[in-house]
């Protein structure tokens, strides 16, 4: 079974702090994704990566950056946290190829910025 592990379930940080959210997958997947989920807005893609050191902007990348130094790990970085970044953050991974494409999600990190 695919396991996508996010380092924290709940996190509270202050405005202006640099925040790191970590995600690790154990299935050697090429693709990794970061989403945020907000009531009334659904899941929105922040960034994705299709290989080590490769990254692409999603629909709402402003205020975020990412790092993929190793294949199994994809980090989301809030450079200077703001209150409008309070949200549920979900990491996902998938392999290449249409036949086995479904994204597998981690349990999420509920981040509060005070």
């Amino acid at each position, binding site marked *: 079974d695919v396991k*996508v592990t996010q380092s924290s379930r709940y996190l509270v940080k202050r405005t202006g702090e640099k925040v790191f959210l970590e995600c690790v997958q154990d299935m050697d997947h*090429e*693709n990794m*994704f970061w*989403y945020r989920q907000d009531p*009334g*807005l*659904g*899941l*929105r*893609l922040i960034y*994705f990566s*299709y290989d080590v050191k490769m990254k*692409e902007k*999603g*629909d709402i990348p402003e205020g975020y950056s990412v790092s993929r130094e190793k294949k199994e790990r994809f980090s989301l970085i809030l450079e200077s946290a703001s209150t409008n970044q309070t949200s549920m953050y*979900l990491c*996902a991974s998938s392999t*290449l190829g*249409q036949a086995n*494409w*479904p*994204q*597998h*999600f*981690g*349990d*999420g990190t509920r981040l509060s910025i005070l």
Partner: protein
Amino acid sequence: EDKVVQSPLSLVVHEGDTVTLNCSYEVTNFRSLLWYKQEKKAPTFLFMLTSSGIEKKSGRLSSILDKKELFSILNITATQTGDSAVYLCAPRRGGADGLTFGKGTHLIIQP
């Protein structure tokens, strides 16, 4: 701009009822459409639909895609309280990029 509209946004039914959830989409370079169920934590994968008119079934759940009319439906028969969840529809674009999610249908099954 890609667009995914799910309806209804919320639905309350009694155990044993049959429900139909709708998803219409406009996505550039469409490849496939995925349905997920989300309870308290991570979305869990239900179906991936690539071809029109071919029904996919898993127990009491089934789903079908119409690529000409750009919609999909998810049916749940003989509903149970454990079916209560948010159901998410997500078309996939070509390439390695992520899914575009609808806002979801919040389904509540009352005993």
